[in-house]
């Protein structure tokens, strides 16, 4: 009786665990909707929505291609990353953003991974400039809400 009770508890626990994992994961449909929301926030310069979509402790890693070749890596906090986006909005006279079709996959931890290209053409201080980012974004749920928890970018500015 005791053994079967333990088995039942074990089964219930494992079922509960599986259910919570399924609940925590981000479906492709959710991810597509999330990425659309992210892109729209960038296009409409909506700082509040961007702030909402980004986890406060998100890890942002930028590999900046150097003019003389090679790459230099920077790790930014989410607040600094968002502040930079707002500063570009402030200083860029005209700005045109384009995105490639996002691709969706899962990593070993079952997190949703989104990869896409982002090209930002802008006029800064009278100079026509471009920034091309190859983005790899990891999405996860935090308190039930989908958030960007990691963003890696290989970036080129010219």
């Amino acid at each position, binding site marked *: 009786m005791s053994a079967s009770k333990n088995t039942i508890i074990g089964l219930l626990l494992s079922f509960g665990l599986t259910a919570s994992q399924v609940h925590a994961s981000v479906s492709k449909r959710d991810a597509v909707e999330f990425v659309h929301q992210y892109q729209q926030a960038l296009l409409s310069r909506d700082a509040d929505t961007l702030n909402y979509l980004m986890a406060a402790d998100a890890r942002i890693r930028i590999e900046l291609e150097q003019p003389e070749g090679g790459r*230099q890596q*920077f*790790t*930014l906090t989410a607040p600094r990353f968002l502040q930079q986006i707002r500063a570009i909005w402030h*200083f860029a006279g005209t700005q045109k953003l384009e995105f490639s079709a996002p691709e969706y996959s899962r990593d070993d931890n079952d997190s949703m991974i989104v990869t896409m290209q982002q090209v930002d053409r802008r006029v800064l*201080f009278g100079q026509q400039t471009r920034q091309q980012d190859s983005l790899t974004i990891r999405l996860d749920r935090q308190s039930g809400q989908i958030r960007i928890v990691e963003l890696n970018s290989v970036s080129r500015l010219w």
Partner: protein
Amino acid sequence: MKRYRWRLLWLLALAPMTMAQSLCVFSVQGTQGELYGQMKDFALVAHGWGVELELKAFVDERIAAEDFKADQCDAALLTGIRARAFNPFAGSVDAIGGLPDYEALHTLITLLARPELAPRMRHGAYEVAGIMPLGAAYIFLNDRGISSIEKMAGKRLAVFEHDPAQIAMAKRIGAQPVSSDVSNFAGKFNNGVVDVIAAPAVAYMPLELYRGIGANGVVVDMPVAQLTFQLLLRHQRFPADFAARSRQYFLDLFDQAMQVVRASESEILFFFPPPDGDGPRYRQLLQDSRIALTEQGYYDPQMMRLMKRVRCSRSPNQAECSDERE
């Protein structure tokens, strides 16, 4: 008798004017801007303490300091770097790499407002009667290609001629020091006369430093020093308890001053931390420079020990906390 009474009233009316103490305020924006407004508020508070302050604005800090030294002002609000000449202890708060963040600065200013440290705030005829954050000094570069300390070698770096610490720092990293002052360093950077400057974020918009950074530069998000404004008094001209009350008043202004600093920092474009892995090397460079400058007499050793205590109380695992270098 009637004539005598009128004379007395006339003298009484004149009395507050003759008793007024002059406060020379260095403010890049003159009588405009937040800083001068804060000093006007301070003058109102000082009135309640029985001291009439007459404010005089100076856009050139050198002249404000010289007037104070020449006894043309009873008090002066100067940057910590300039105030070091009047009080080496408090003036060393702005030491290179002295404090890593604003929480540490707040801890230090709180300590300096305590009565136990009051004797250290007095140096000869002068007394520091308040310290206010001006914001961290950051490195501004006009070229992102200058991506490491080594690459600063040979670059033209604006240094304030009244701050030997900056000149020594430039030599240490192999940069070419270009003598400047508060009134012309921004113009030199924006016009490409110098490649590198160190400045607080509050200078970014008013001095249009974004023009010097342009589309290809960068601001390194790592404090080189914590800059301050310091209120200096000729203490014999003020009531005995004035400086202590004033230090507490300035301490209470900390959060208000930080709002201006943080708002300024939120405006900086291309504001990136040092490349991954370079942070410890930057910190080591700052520490080595600070220790060398203390040995050369630029910084006060007691203040350096106090700042180390503040750093180590917050991050006791840092390597410096187990050595005796400071």
